[in-house]
């Protein structure tokens, strides 16, 4: 439960940062925090008491109780790639905004667009 609440706190912090921080780069960092929160949440769903990492070792047929749930790990591998890709594209956009408008401050940017 604690780890769920931790994910909820991270998520709230991230999304609040996206809305409230004045600098676009900081908004992007806050967005990353938000995405990591979801990843923490999913990975914690995979945890099983008394189980080990989902990689088959030597020995007999695997039993479900011995290994952690591999599905959330798989899903989060994809989610991490999504997060990396979004961040890369967002950085590209920020570099462009920076050279064109010479500011990353949201209000000033909106003033310059007016």
């Amino acid at each position, binding site marked *: 439960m604690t780890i769920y609440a931790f994910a909820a706190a991270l998520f*709230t912090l991230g999304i609040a940062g996206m809305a409230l921080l004045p600098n676009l780069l900081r908004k992007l960092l806050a967005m990353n925090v938000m995405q990591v929160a979801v990843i923490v949440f999913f990975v914690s*769903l995979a945890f099983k008491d008394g189980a080990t990492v989902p990689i088959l070792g030597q020995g007999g047929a695997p039993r479900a109780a011995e290994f952690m749930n591999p599905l959330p790990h798989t899903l989060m591998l994809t989610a991490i790639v999504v997060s990396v890709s979004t961040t890369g594209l967002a950085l590209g956009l920020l570099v*462009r905004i920076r050279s064109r408008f010479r500011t990353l401050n949201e209000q000033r940017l909106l003033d310059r667009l007016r």
Partner: protein
Amino acid sequence: MGTAPPGRPPAPGTPRVRRLLGAAAFPALFVGLVVGMTQLPEFGDPASPASTHLSPRFIEDAAAETGAANMVTAVLADYRGYDTLGEAAVIFAAGLGCLVILAAAGARPDPPGAGMSHPFGSVVLDAATRILVPVVLLFAVYVLIHGHVSPGGGFQGGVLFGSGLIMMRLVWGPAHEGRAHQPAVPAFGPGLRGSLVLACAGILAYVGIGLAAMAFGGEFLNYGTLPLGGDPAHVRELATLGIEAAVFLTVAGTVAVLFDTISIGMRESGAPLPPGDGDSA
């Protein structure tokens, strides 16, 4: 924001209305999430639906059905291989995006000098890089191939390979120009256009394997129908390796594309911004 430099108004903060709205909305979001979470199965509960519904098959049958000892690889590249095609497409989209936004913006289609404008050349860095880069690239391929039986796979290997490419760009300068520090070092690795070709080739290989399965009468991405000989699990294992290699190509190419385009953009974007406007805010 700190103190503004003399003669400049301080950078504006977030509008007051939005701050007040946020002060109400975000605590509510947190409380709502936590209230919902109290009803979820306990952390680590082996009897939770997540642990009992789908995962037993992935754990107990994956090795026999797909030939992968690493169950995450089995689910990633086989049971949910379609998700992984989507994952490759997402990172490819980011590469396309940065190329469109930054590199292809100018009149020159492939600006020479994709890479850092001022490589930090020094003898120490140069010597260390010569030793490290081959190790990094080789380890990347190991992580790719060994993903079946240990942590690893196409994405992880691709990122490692891409970071090897970036390391060379950082120390020796752009892949296209004469090396700034050590002109004697032979040009190695793909430039910007080559990295794009790598990324495209990865996606094409992935979709190609999927379509080949259709040509042999299976569903899209049903590797079991491929005529590679041997028992179905072994065929699936081989095809999974092909899939992982395709992801590897896409990720390695895209990582280099992202680095090149963003560094081109940074070079063209001029002097650092004043504090209130960004760079140190």
